[in-house]
């Protein structure tokens, strides 16, 4: 067996995953802390205020990365859910459902910071604009996945149902996005495209740092949640017992 396949099979084993994730988590938190500190300092102190929006533009350094994360995590859920359903890997089931609360939290952050940013710039907290509406629908999709998971008693069945729902939602998400876009739009378009960005580097760098910092946060939070869920599911199994004996010694 080659090294990659060995790694692949190992990650599918709960005790190995538990230990591996446990070693990885502190580094992810460190990465998150360093990047957030740098990104926030650059964004809040070094970056210039916008010539039209003034200081309020600084909400961007939280809002935009959170909105990116909300979409990326849903995509991750669909991919991991697909793997969980096809190959019946339990770790993937656990990772799929553990992603949902983190994604929902980022969606809520994006909605709240967006509405706080909208007040000084657009003059209103909420409009039925395309991006706001699709973000809200995304939040409902997250809540649906979480509610479906909680409705089942048996955790593995629950995780598989939630995975299927995540996939169905992911197929619909682009359709929802474009239909809403076509319906009504006030939000500015994306400032990023394949040919480059229309943002000045002094504002681009903190934004990118924050985006990467949020990914570290997602990784750390996801792995911590997955570890806890594994412990709960396996609390009668031998590896958990051995682990508890080891830790108490």
């Amino acid at each position, binding site marked *: 067996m080659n090294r990659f396949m060995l790694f692949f099979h190992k990650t599918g084993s709960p005790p190995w995953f538990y230990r591996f994730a446990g070693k990885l988590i502190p580094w992810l938190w460190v990465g998150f802390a360093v990047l957030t500190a740098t990104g926030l300092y650059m964004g809040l102190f070094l970056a210039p205020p916008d010539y039209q929006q003034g200081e309020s533009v600084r909400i961007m350094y939280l809002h935009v990365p959170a909105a990116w994360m909300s979409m990326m995590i849903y995509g991750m859920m669909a991919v991991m859910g697909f793997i969980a*359903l096809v190959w019946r890997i339990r770790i993937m089931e656990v990772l799929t459902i553990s992603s949902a609360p983190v994604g929902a939290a980022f969606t809520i952050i994006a909605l709240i910071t967006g509405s706080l940013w909208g007040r000084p710039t657009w003059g209103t907290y909420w409009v039925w604009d395309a991006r706001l509406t699709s973000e809200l629908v995304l939040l409902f999709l997250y809540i649906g996945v979480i*509610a479906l998971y909680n*409705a*089942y008693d048996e955790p593995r*069945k629950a995780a598989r149902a939630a995975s299927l729902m995540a996939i169905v939602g992911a197929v619909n998400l682009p359709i929802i996005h474009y239909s809403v876009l076509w319906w009504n739009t006030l939000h500015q378009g994306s400032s990023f495209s394949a040919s480059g960005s229309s943002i000045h580097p002094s504002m681009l760098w903190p934004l990118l740092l924050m985006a990467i910092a949020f990914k570290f946060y997602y990784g750390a939070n996801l792995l911590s949640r997955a570890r806890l869920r594994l412990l709960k599911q396996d609390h009668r199994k031998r590896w958990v017992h051995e682990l508890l004996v080891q830790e108490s010694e």
Partner: protein
Amino acid sequence: MSKPALSTAFWALLRRDFLLAYRRRAELLQPLVFLLVVVTLFPLGVGPSPQLLANIAPGVIWIAALLATVLPLDSLFRSDYEDGTLEQMVLSGQPLALIALARILAHWLVAGLPIVLLSPLLAVWMNLPDAGVPVLIKSLIIGTPVLSLIGAIGAALTVSLKRGGQLLSLLVFPLYVPLLILATSAVSAAVAGLPYNGQLGLILAGMIAALTLAPFATAAALKLSLS
């Protein structure tokens, strides 16, 4: 014993579903009465001004149709699940997606089609201008199957839960957003004298996509509920 052909199984299922629906006629009427009551509430709530009603007519009729289709969805697979028929269907060796499709088609014929037939009456109640009525009917003919198809996925996911009804609406309503937008905008465009074929074409495309994908997702969800 040899397995019956696909088409035989499909028609037998459809026939059985019709018979079941016919024997429970009173239950069948409930969603339609619900539809009429919901539409009646709007003029009472927003006032009887004909102009206002005409403006909101496409949205009100479509939202009422959406609610009335979701109402009977909860029982789509429930009785078959509870008495073990669903398990026998899985064991029959016929593709589960086909069985799901027969069930969905039966649901549309008894829950979706009556809404289409009632829609001219609703259009009169809501004072929808004449130019909008044919488009409203067309949008309902091609749009209500999408409601049944996507709804079936939610129904299959929640069939093994004791209180699946509320959860079902939470799961499927966000997925109905594109359909609602396209359908109401087609009717509004027709009333304003603008072209509306683009919207209807997109709904049709959505229906074909749902028709090809939703039975498989429903089948996967049913297998999961039975496991």
